[in-house]
């Protein structure tokens, strides 16, 4: 075959194109001919011509980028063939395009976290939810269903605490007091959680 059969792959432009290869785009700064664009008979051929030249330039640029070849193994499939893919490594996109949503902000520190950071308090290593119950010789949860913090609730005899003595609570069942205390702490924690969420927003 002679060289004459092949059409050229180079394009000459008075002003060279700029490219945004990350978005596979090219920008041609050369002005188009308004008289041809206004004539409906010529318009489409003219546009096709100009676009072809620009696509040629774009393809030339894209194919000169570094290439990465990957091989997919299909040994498990019935054909047992490997397929190779030629992937072009694109640079980062240049065109500034707006985001869809704002950049997510980091979660605000809770009141405790701020305090701990100021005081240099490190959080304890988590040692799990279960604790060993020496009396029964079993592992029980620290809190929750059958939790260790409810030990007092079902004992037949409970000592009245010193701090309750000589107050109006002295005659109330210490088991009820204990349970109330637990419920109060849960409420308090919920309140703090809510406050942190409100302050963080």
């Amino acid at each position, binding site marked *: *075959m002679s*060289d004459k059969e*092949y*059409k*050229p*792959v180079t394009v000459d432009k008075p002003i060279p194109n700029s490219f945004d290869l*990350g*978005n*596979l*785009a*090219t*920008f*041609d*700064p*050369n*002005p*188009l*001919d*308004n008289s041809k*664009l*206004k004539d*409906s008979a010529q*318009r*489409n051929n003219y*546009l*096709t011509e*100009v*676009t*072809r030249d*620009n*696509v*040629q330039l*774009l*393809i*030339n640029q*894209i*194919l*000169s980028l570094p290439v*990465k070849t990957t091989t997919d193994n299909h040994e498990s499939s019935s054909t047992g063939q490997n397929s190779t*893919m*030629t*992937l*072009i*490594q*694109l*640079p*980062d*996109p240049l*065109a*500034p*395009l*707006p*985001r*869809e*949503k*704002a*950049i*997510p902000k980091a979660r605000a520190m809770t009141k405790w976290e701020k305090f701990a950071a100021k005081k240099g308090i490190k959080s304890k290593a988590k040692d799990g939810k279960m604790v060993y119950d020496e009396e029964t010789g079993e592992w029980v949860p620290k809190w929750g269903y059958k939790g260790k913090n409810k030990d007092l609730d079902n004992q037949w005899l409970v000592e009245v605490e010193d701090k309750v003595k000589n107050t109006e609570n002295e005659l109330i069942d210490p088991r009820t007091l204990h349970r109330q205390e637990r419920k109060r702490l849960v409420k308090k924690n919920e309140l703090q959680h809510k406050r942190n969420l409100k302050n963080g927003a």
Partner: protein
Amino acid sequence: MIRTVKPKNARSKRALAKKEAKLVENTKSALFVPGSTSNKLLHDAMCDLMALKKPHCKKFSKKNEIRPFEEAAELEFFSEKNDTSLMVFSSNNKKRPNNLTFARFFNHKVYDMVELSIQADDCKLLQDFKKLTFTIGLKPMFVFNGPAFDHHPAFQHIKSLFMDFYRGDETDLQDVAGLQHIIALSTGEIEDPNSTTLPMLHFRVYKLKTYRSNQKVPRVEIDEIGPRFDFKIGRRISPAPEVEKDALSKPKELEARVKKNVNTDFMGDKIGRIHVGNQDLGKLQTRKMKGLKAKYDQVEVDNDDEEFVSADEEPQPKRQKN
């Protein structure tokens, strides 16, 4: 604002997490909304624009009485409800015939809008072309012809809009076989820079054909596959400067970290410099012998009687050997 409740199960939690703002964002999806005055041509045009955008698109079938340039709240509601940040709205009236409003949203608020009016005389839909179509979900190539795209604000807007609309997934690896269709936008010269009438915008879509050229790169030919639209540019809303700044900002977390003390020499070898810290010969571990143990160290003791070391005494500070 749409009321959000705390998700009660994992599925709704996942669905909400998908809508949240992310560092690396989802591909933008588009919503096609017919206006109350929409007609057959606009419907077909929207279908064709949607075919190019598939699978990241959604279409409303009912007409909506909205005037985007007067009251965009309803569009913002649609954007939030459907989690789409691109929208095409169609309307047709005597002053602005066959109008498509392209809107972009940031944080579900209108970011920018532009009206493009389809010129009916040279409009060819996808179905009018030969059956040569594009594969769904491929990234298109973009060609922008004309210097106006570089310096005129309206055309810069349109350039940014169409690239945003159709670029598809953001990726750094592109399959050669996936380079199939080209979206070309062209505009003529702006004849009178003072007049408000802008030249037409020509929207064309082509399919790529490559031929052997006896060289490394192939000879390229293109076939028009449609749709083909000529747009007249109408009203336009550009983003507010502070919103634009927010929208264009890049997250710091994604910036590539500069690797310190690593460089490549002229042979292409990677050379790293490391810090080994101060060398303290006093702490050097030499041969271990019983006689070198700390407790046998000879130091001046005040009274020789108390030579023994009791267990509950505090450990003495480490003395320098030799």
